[in-house]
């Protein structure tokens, strides 16, 4: 399931719902991305996430479908927030449920890695020096690329 929203989410309730009524799943893996303040010379007072409504949902659904093709998942969930968020707030939740932990953990990492390079979101940071757009990290490309060469688990 895909959700793109401004408001926060309840992690416990979301994970509960993910496997409700399903006794087949042996494990749930999850990743929660947070707004961080790096401190010192890199202070951030807030983050604003812009996105491309329509394409965002389309890309997230494609990424989720790909994870379901690669791993035997019972359920998967991506919630991504947009708008202005402050340090400590949640940005994204990715969760996967599977009969086996290997599939749940690998699919969860795959989802967050691919989402970072494929889903049309952009972060702008508020700093004491003013606003600045976050630049793409080469490490994120490398993390996503890894999955393009790896088949299954």
């Amino acid at each position: 399931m895909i959700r793109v929203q401004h408001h926060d989410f309840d992690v416990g309730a979301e994970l509960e719902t993910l496997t409700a009524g399903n006794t087949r799943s042996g494990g749930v893996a999850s990743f929660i991305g947070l707004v961080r303040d790096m401190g010192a010379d890199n202070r951030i007072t807030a983050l604003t996430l812009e996105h491309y409504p329509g394409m965002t949902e389309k890309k997230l659904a494609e990424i989720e479908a790909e994870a379901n093709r690669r791993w035997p998942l019972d359920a998967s969930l991506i919630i991504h927030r947009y708008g202005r968020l402050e340090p400590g707030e949640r940005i994204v939740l990715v969760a996967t449920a599977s009969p086996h932990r290997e599939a749940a953990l690998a699919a969860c990492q795959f989802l967050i890695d691919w989402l970072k390079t494929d889903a049309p979101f952009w972060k702008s940071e508020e700093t004491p020096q003013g606003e600045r757009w976050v630049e793409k990290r080469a490490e994120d490309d490398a993390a996503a690329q890894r999955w393009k060469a790896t088949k299954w688990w």
Partner: protein
Amino acid sequence: MRLLYFAWLRAKIGTAEEELKLPPQVHDVKSLLQWLKSRGPGYAEALKDMQTVRVAVNQDYVGPEHAIRDGDEVAIFPPVTGG
């Protein structure tokens, strides 16, 4: 053709969205970007380094050779930084 701009590309161009008639010299993504660059200093500045520009046509990522047709939704934006 509907053009959408996001993040700092939107800020540099100065608009989020515009509806334009496809000019005769535009037939693919490459020629569209060339033409846009000639539309003003904001466009030229936003599109000066193609390494930092991504294009989606009808909500799918495309390369420079991808054909553009009237009625397409073309989005131009920097590399994504979500997650």
